[in-house]
């Protein structure tokens, strides 16, 4: 009678079979359970644990082109690849003007590239649009900023493909309340939910540049990969290209995290009709992991204000503009005080009149 070894799903006490009612009985919390249900419950909970993600190692392919040179930033150490004829006057990452030129050696050849589609002029216009209507922006910011410093950079990305196999359980509750006499009754029904299945991901980008803030690059997504082409040095003409300094191996955890969160979200969406759903256990196996190396187009805009560099970026393919603007402390507290004063006045008048 191995049925006697079940644990109570409510309080984890050991259940006993009550032959009179033909049910499993918990002596600790007085719950009764159908033995058939408990059998299924145990089956569901016997799910396998997650294995390590199965990613390929990236096979590198060296890139030799006598016309390309490496520009090295004295200030932040960025290695920027460009045609020898492309004048790199300042660093697109740290706004520093000291850039040295040298010969290219041993850079990685990208598998694919998405060519620039949006012009420099649009980046200028988008920055103006981005600043307009921002009430917390310091008044001097627009007057002082020199937005002519705009660079087109091909940013290195690792693209991750994989299949995810998920095995997830949730605890769920349905709640029903009703009134009878002087009492309000609350009935809570407890469920164990199990979902298993598959989902595939294609070309999740992870930024391979150390200097480039991951948040900036993820905010520029999505890119349309339909327009990606095989790499040719000709695409670099007039633009800079960053040399990757975060390798594929180090980029895997970020890809894994986004795959895990996305898979959990997709499966959680299939659980509906409950008042409360809490994940109980999640096992996600990643298989068929493939990694590719790509250069994606980004317009970089830097401006110094109050001794700090503010960076903006525009997706060179779609024109999506993102960034961070400085906040005027005076305006911030002015608005807090002003709104508090107006609302308090209205509130106090309502209370006292």
């Amino acid at each position, binding site marked *: 009678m191995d049925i006697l070894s079940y644990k109570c799903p409510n309080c984890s006490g050991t259940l006993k079979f009550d032959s009179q009612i033909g049910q499993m009985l918990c002596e600790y919390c007085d719950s009764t359970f159908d033995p058939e249900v408990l059998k299924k419950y145990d089956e*569901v909970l016997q799910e396998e644990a997650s294995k390590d993600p199965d990613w390929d190692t990236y096979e590198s392919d060296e890139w030799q082109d006598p016309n390309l040179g490496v520009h090295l930033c004295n200030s932040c150490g960025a290695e920027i690849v460009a045609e020898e004829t492309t004048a790199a006057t300042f660093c697109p990452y740290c706004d520093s003007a000291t850039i040295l030129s040298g010969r290219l050696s041993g850079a990685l050849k990208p598998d694919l590239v998405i060519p620039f589609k949006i012009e420099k002029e649009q980046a200028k216009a988008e920055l103006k649009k981005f600043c307009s209507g921002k009430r917390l922006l310091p008044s001097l910011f627009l007057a002082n900023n020199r937005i002519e410093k705009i660079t087109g950079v091909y940013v290195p990305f690792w693209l991750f493909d994989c299949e995810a196999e998920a095995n997830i359980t949730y605890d769920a509750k349905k709640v029903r309340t009703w009134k009878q006499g*002087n009492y309000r009754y609350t009935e809570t029904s407890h469920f164990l*939910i199990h979902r298993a299945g598959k*989902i595939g991901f294609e070309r999740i980008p992870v930024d391979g540049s150390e200097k480039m803030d991951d948040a900036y690059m993820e905010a520029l997504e999505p890119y349309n990969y339909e327009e990606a082409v095989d790499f040719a040095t000709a695409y670099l003409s007039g633009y800079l290209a960053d040399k990757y300094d975060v390798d594929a191996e180090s980029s895997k955890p970020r890809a894994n995290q986004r795959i895990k969160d996305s898979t959990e979200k997709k499966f959680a969406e299939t659980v509906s009709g409950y008042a409360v759903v809490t994940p109980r256990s999640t096992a996600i196996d990643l298989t068929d992991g493939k990694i590719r190396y790509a250069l994606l187009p980004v317009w970089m805009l830097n401006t110094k204000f109050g001794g700090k560099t503010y960076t903006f970026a525009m997706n060179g393919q779609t024109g999506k503009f993102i960034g961070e*603007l400085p906040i005027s402390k005076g305006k911030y507290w002015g*608005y807090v005080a002003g*709104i508090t004063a107006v609302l308090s006045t209205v509130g*106090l008048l309502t209370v006292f009149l």
Partner: protein
Amino acid sequence: MKKLFTSLFLFVLLLSFYTFPALAANVYDNENLLSASEKQLLEKRLQDIAETYNFDVAIVTVDSLNGKSAMEYADDYYDENGFGFGPDHDGLLFLLAMDSRDYWTSTSGYGIKAFTDYGIRYISDNVVGLLSEGEYYKAFDKYLDYVDMFLAEAATGTPFDTDHEVITSGDYLFLSLLTVAISAAIAFIVVGIMKSKMKTANKQRYALNYVKDGSFKVTSDKDLFLYTTTTKQKVESSSNSGGSSTHSSSSGNSHGGGGGKF
């Protein structure tokens, strides 16, 4: 000329005597709980109330209710002594019976409208402590403070009631601080939204743009019912409808009122 002035002065004096309902010196302290000067002070207050609101207030202390209930005794005392102004006998009477330690407020006419069941309970609750301590003058003085305050409120058209409760200065301070705190919280939320628009460079949590078409497949879905728990909670029936409940006294007049033991 001087004669004319004197007669005019006398006329004005008489006129002012006439408009004073000087008869409103209604402190019947049969138990001698008050000193002569305390009694005078209270009578002055009753006169002021009578002048301001044209409303008759009587304070009565007795030894025993003589077998009547406090309500009956107060109502009859009011009717038999002809208290109250105007055809509806607008006014109220506050009775203390010392041997049974009963107190009772009987209202009549406009008093029924101005002093709802809620109002009488509110005033009683705030005065009963002083009565229990034997601070009779302070208790009556405070009682009259409330009578003044309730009449002033009733004059605006909305007497204090369950849907229009009394707010004290302590409540006002609390409400003011609460209003400012809520306003500040809203201000921080609004400015917080403004601030969040200053930074759009944020990480993405999901990668749902990169799901392969048709790759999402659920191969097993089980929703397993386990057990049910039921809890019950007592609910208080709220039947506080507000207003004044009235009854007829032995003389047939309509009275409102309320009271208790001190």
